[in-house]
């Protein structure tokens, strides 16, 4: 299982803060495609994906038990 986290504007879109999905072995790029199908527009705002609290590249592969977070453009400070 992969644990997905949604924040800020993206959580407003998904309607839930987290969910578990069966996407181990898939790439971050594939995760984004999956997400776009389930939540149309989720890729539009320039969100990044973090795996286990580090920003990931599109080619990075999800492993069983990973936490993947959708990080919309940050606006701290």
């Amino acid at each position, binding site marked *: 299982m992969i644990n997905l986290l949604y924040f800020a504007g993206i959580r407003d879109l998904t309607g839930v803060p987290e969910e578990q999905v069966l996407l181990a072995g898939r790439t971050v790029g594939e995760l984004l495609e999956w997400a776009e199908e389930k939540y149309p527009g989720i890729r539009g705002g320039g969100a990044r994906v973090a795996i286990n*609290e580090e920003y990931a590249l599109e080619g990075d592969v999800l492993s069983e038990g990973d936490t993947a977070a959708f990080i919309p453009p940050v606006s701290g400070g």
Partner: protein
Amino acid sequence: MSIYEITDKPIDPHRYADHVLHPEAGAVVTFTGHVREWTKGIRTLYLSYEAYVPMAEKKMAQIGREIEEKWKGTRVAIAHRIGELDVGEVAVVIAVSSPHRKAAYEANEYAIERIKQDVPIWKKEIWETGEQWIGDQNKKPEVRNP
């Protein structure tokens, strides 16, 4: 030893400035970012900040390490508040000490730039007429999943 924290309590900047002080520190630069009442002609009632807390604290610590490597002899403390903030309240504090002042100014400014790029914190502005999550639409993140 170092402080890198996300907190839902009011921030006392003094605490962070004191924290980086030591006998070889000749200069301390402290930056605080505050909630402004007016932004581009629109009145803000209050702000709401949200963070991906463990990742945000990790990223802030990483920025601190970058600084301590780039400017020798510096010490860094960073805190960012989450939850609802009223006008005037401190959203973020960055304290940097250094043997000499130049490095303290530079490193402090570097810290806030890096926070605004990479630390997973989001601001929502609440006005009289509505509310909106603020994303830094003008800057491209370094790593982007398109």
